[in-house]
Structures are given as C-alpha cells and as structure tokens.
C-alpha cells in the first residue's frame, strides 16, 4: 500500500482494533458472572437491536455507493447516497439512545451491576465512535451540497468510508457476542 492517506487510516484502525479488543475481552472476562434477570444480557432485546443493526449495515452499503458516485463525479447520486448514509447512521444512534432509556427505566444502569458496567462501557464507547463518524459524514454532506466534494478530493471520503466500515464491523462483533450468543 503506497497511498499514504489510506495507509495512515489503516494503521489508525489497527490501533482502534486493539482498543476495542481490550474492551471486548474485558466484557467476556466477566461473562460467567452475568447472572440474574437484571445482571445479564437476557435483559436486552435482540430483535429491536437487530433492526438498528440492519440500518447500520445498510449505511455501509450506501456510503460505498456515495464514494463511487464521488469518484465518477455524479453529484446527484453522491448527495442522495450521502444523505441516506447520514439518515441510517442517525437511526442507529437514535435506536441506541432509545434502548438506553428503556434499560435505565428498568433500573439497569452503568453502576447497577457488573453487566451494566460492561454493557454500557462497551456499547457506549462504540456509540461515541459512530457519533464521530456521523460528524464526519455530515461535514462530507455539507461539502457535497456546496459542490466541493469533487472527484479529486474523493480520497477524503474514502478515509471516512474506511473508518465507517470498521465501526460497522466492530458493531457486528459486539452484536453477535452481547445480543445473540446468550440466546443460543
């Protein structure tokens, strides 16, 4: 890989993988002690979160299309796909916030139990990463609407795209381990 921009993003994502790796391993470290109704992943709703997960997955697809449109100078496609990406990302984040309020209403909080601490740390830090990505996407959308996201600047959007796919993959790992695995 000789493109210095892509290489730098790739290295940053490697370091982020170590960061999330530690949090995921720490979540699993306590897995045997997640027992009882309010101290276990069984308090979560995998179906609802599954829907939001699909939104996040779809946003990776729309961002890929937005990047291709940018490369080919198709300004209409670029704007539509970017707008769809921002909307899908916002749906995911909104869904996570809604899930949090439901849990907190049931008195499952970051300080209520070991599971609560682990769950809110892991998903919260991931949510912050989604939020950061969403900010970058909104900036990209603004540039696209202003006609500034031209094909020779497509590398900027490619960098955001790499980051977004990474955050997406991390979520798939979290969703599988936290939401699905306990139900198997």
């Amino acid at each position, binding site marked *: *890989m000789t493109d210095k921009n892509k290489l730098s993003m790739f*290295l940053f994502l490697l*370091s982020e993988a170590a960061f*999330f790796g530690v949090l995921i391993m720490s979540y699993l470290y306590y897995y045997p002690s997640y027992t009882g109704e309010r101290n276990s992943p069984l308090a979560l709703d995998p179906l609802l979160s599954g829907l939001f997960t699909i939104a996040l997955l779809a946003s990776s697809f729309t961002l890929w299309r937005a990047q291709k449109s940018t490369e080919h100078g198709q300004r209409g496609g670029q704007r539509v796909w970017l707008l769809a990406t921002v909307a899908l990302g916002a749906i995911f984040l909104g869904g996570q916030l809604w899930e949090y309020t439901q849990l907190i209403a049931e008195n499952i909080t*970051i*300080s209520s139990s070991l599971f609560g*601490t682990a769950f809110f740390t892991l998903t919260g830090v991931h949510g912050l990463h989604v939020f950061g990505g969403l900010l970058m996407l909104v900036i990209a959308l603004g540039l696209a609407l202003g006609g500034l996201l031209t094909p020779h600047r497509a590398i900027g959007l490619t960098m955001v795209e790499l980051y977004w796919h990474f955050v997406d993959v991390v979520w798939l790992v979290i969703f599988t381990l936290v939401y699905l695995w306990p139900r198997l």
Partner: protein
Amino acid sequence: MSEISLAPDAADALPGLSQPSGLLRWIASVDHKQIGIMYIVGALVFFVIGGLEAMLIRAQLAQPNAKLISPEFYNQLFTMHGVTMVFLVGMPILIGFGNYLVPLQIGAHDMAFPRLNALGLWLFIFGGLLMYFSFFIGQAPDQGWFSYAPLAEQPYTSHRGPDYWSLGLFVTGIGSVSGAINVIVTVWTMRAPGLTMRRLPLFTWMTFINGFLIIFALQILNAGLVMLEVDRLFGGSWFTPPGSPVLWQHVFWSFGHPEVYILILPAFGMISEIIPVFSRKPIFGYEFVAGSTIVIGFLSFTVWAHHMFAVDLGIGWHAFQSAATMLISIPTGIKIFSWIATMWGGKLRFTTAMLFAASFLVIFTIGGITGVTFALVPTDWQTTDTYYVVAHFHYVLVGGTFFAVYAGVYYWYPKVVGRMLSERLGKWHFWLNFAGLNLTFFVQHFLGLMGMPRRVYTYPDLPGWGTLNLISTLGGLISALAVLVFVVNLVWSARRGQPAGDNPWQAWTLEWATTSPPPPHNFEELPPVRSRRPLWDLAHPEDPDWKREH
C-alpha cells in the same frame, strides 16, 4: 544514470504559516526538525522536574526513620517521578529523535503528515501540563505510576489524583499514537530512490518497528483508562467488587510490558548507529539486528503476566510466562553480541558518544541479567516489590535508555546545532554519571535482597540499611551533578562550540550528507543510495559497499 538525484518532493512548499517570526516561528511550526527539537527540549524540562522529584525521594531515604517530607507528599513524588520519566521524558525524547532523524536518514524533506506531527507534540506538552496541574490544586496522583486497583478506585482514593493521571495519559497517548502512525507511513512511503527496507539505517528501522508497538500498546492503555474512569466517575465496577482488580493488572501490563520495549528499541537503534561509526566498521549482522527487533516486538505482547506472578494465576500461566520471558531475552542477546562483534577488531574512537554507547553494553546487560531472574517464579516471589526491582529497572532505563540517549545527543548535536559539544565537559559528564548511576542503584540490589520494600516512606534502622541508603543518596547527588554538567555543555556549546561541518564523525548515513543544521527542505541534492552506507560509497568510489553486497 546521473550520480546525483534530487530529494523526493523537494519542490513542494512546506505547509504552514508563511514567514512567521520569533516565538510564533516555533509554536506554529510544522517542520519536523523544529518539532523534533521541541519534543527533546520539552522532555529535558520534564527530565529536570522528574530528577528533582527523585532527589527529594533520595533525601527522605538517606537516613532511617527520617521525617524530611510528609508521607502524603512522598507518595505523590514517587508516583509522579515514575509517570514523568516514562511518559513525559522517555517516550517524547525518543519520539523527538525519531522526528528529527527519520526524514533525514531516509532522504525525505519532512514527515508524511506535518500537521499531524505538530498535533502529537502539543498533545504531549498539554497532557504533561494537565497532569502537573494537579499539584496546584493539591491533589496530585499518589497511587503509583501503574495505578493499581482497588487503590486507584473511588473508595480508596477519593481525591482527583487518579483522574488527572488517567486524563493526562489519555491525552499524551493519543499524541503518541498519531506520532507513531506518522513515522510508519513516512518510512514506508517516503524513502529516497534506492533506499530499500534492507538498506534502512538501523535507528530508522527500530523507530519504525517501535511505531507498531506504540499504536497497539498505547491503545490497550487507553481502553484501561476508559474503564478506570467509568469506575471512578460513573460508579462502575470494572475493577472493584463484584469486578476484579486482577483484570486491571492484565490490561495495564498488556500495555506495560510492550512499553518497556517502546522505551528501549529506539535506544537500541541509536547504539546501532554509533558503535559502527566509532569502530570504523559496518554493523555486524545487520539482518539479525533488524530482524531480532521484529521478534522482540511480537514477544513483548506475550509476556505481560510475568509482572503478575504474585497474583498466583496458576501453574500453567506461570510456566508459559516464565518460558516466554526467557525467550524474549534471546533476540536482545543477539543484539548485544552483534554490537560487541562490531567493536571487535575495529579502530575504536572513544569519544563521549562512544563512551556512553560502550558503557550501555555493560550496564544494560547487568539490568538484563537481573531481569531474567524475574522470569523464575520462585526468585520473583522473593524479590518482587523490593528494592531489587528498583535496581533492575533503573539499570535498564537509566543505564540503557538514558545512556543511549546521551550517546545520541553527543553524536547528533553537531548535526542539529552546527557546533560540536565540548568533549572535555562530555567526559566529566560521562564519568560522573557512570559513577553516580552505579553508586545509586548497585547497592539497591542488596537492599532488595535483604527485604527492603519499594514505595515505603521510611524504614527502620536495621543493620546496613542506613549505610546502603546513604550511599544510594550520595550516588544520586553525583548523577544530579552530572546532569548539571550536561546542561551547561548543551548551552555553552551552542554558542562557543567548534563548528561541526557536514559530517564531523565521517559517518555513512544520509543525515550527514546535508549541512549542519540542515536547510528547511533538508537536502539540496541526495547522493545515490546503492548500499547501507551511501556516504562510504561516495567517499570510496574505488571500494564501494554495493560492489561487495551483490
């Protein structure tokens, strides 16, 4: 083919403010040389602060049952001494050297991302200031540099010390990661034509590998810091019941052991540049010196639990960690043998730089041998948390990292400043520091074996303890005097030193192919690179390296 090729990208203008002057010329700088100098000067300022903290510690310990300072202040001192020396001195000074030298050694005009480079510098400085601000509100960290849970948790440390520690390290950590990414990308994409990875100068090689250690290790620490702050600020229970403090130890040492190598690999790189030049021979076993660095990088992530033998994780863990720890001493041993073999039969020139480099071999090896004793679980149980450990890691960090950095300063100062450091003051500096280091820390091996625990405010008047501690304190004073001579030399030589010329040591790597100090774009023109020693080839057209290599 022409003999002289242009430096890559030499036509690009440097990004940044146009023609600023005075202080702004430094603060707004995105030039890798200025940023490198600011890293090094910043680290030296923190070095003096951390050194003064050490002096206060030694003053308090000079006599048994002393009450020179309060126990609370003592705890803050040994905590901040450790944090300062590791994060605000060791890492930034090595990153600073990397910043200054890597683009020059690979024939580039700057780092890959000059603005990101400046960001890393300022994150280091403000992270350090954030941590030290805690003294002004009287709540400095006092839980030890490793912040062991549950001591660092809310119920046991209710003041803000551990929060300053966490947030300060988070800020400097992001800076280190961004700097490491920059170095890796720079080395990978901006090498001069002909400068293949197998011809890379060894300092650049090791700084490159070190970049990978930093991006993984510091992010492991960052994850731990997040968890600790979730506990402290939001009432979580990662490391307090029903959670377990052992998890903190796993996370911290998964970072902490690679960190040890982060502090030594670039130092190995400096030694690998300096010993060949002052032995007038190419490095012995280049491939092994470079390759063993990669082995160290991988193994350093597998040995963390040897810091945790006292936790008693079970016989399987102990056996694995013990074996892995002994394994990691092998690639380091390979380097030591390569350096000795380089000196063997060479025309040795004992300049101050070479004195520091040669004594590095001896002192670092002593520290390495005591290190291997910790791989043996029964020995570790006997000596853990005693002054034997303190003696061990000061031999490797002062005698290793710092002696290599001193060697590097004497070697590269002429390139940076354009004037030679005084050899006369340099010799004083070396011998005082050599004596001071050994006086301070050699006796601590015995104190540890006699059972004196670390991190104690004071100690009872047991036979021999008072005398040995007094010797240790006197050694500390001698080291302080040595640092004073060093600082005087740095300042005096900047004005009065002999003009250096382009290549005062008749060295062979590209940084010596340009003027001292180098122009803003580093090179007007580059010599062709056909071997590991381009300047040797240039000076000896009748017997170039590249004819022998192939």
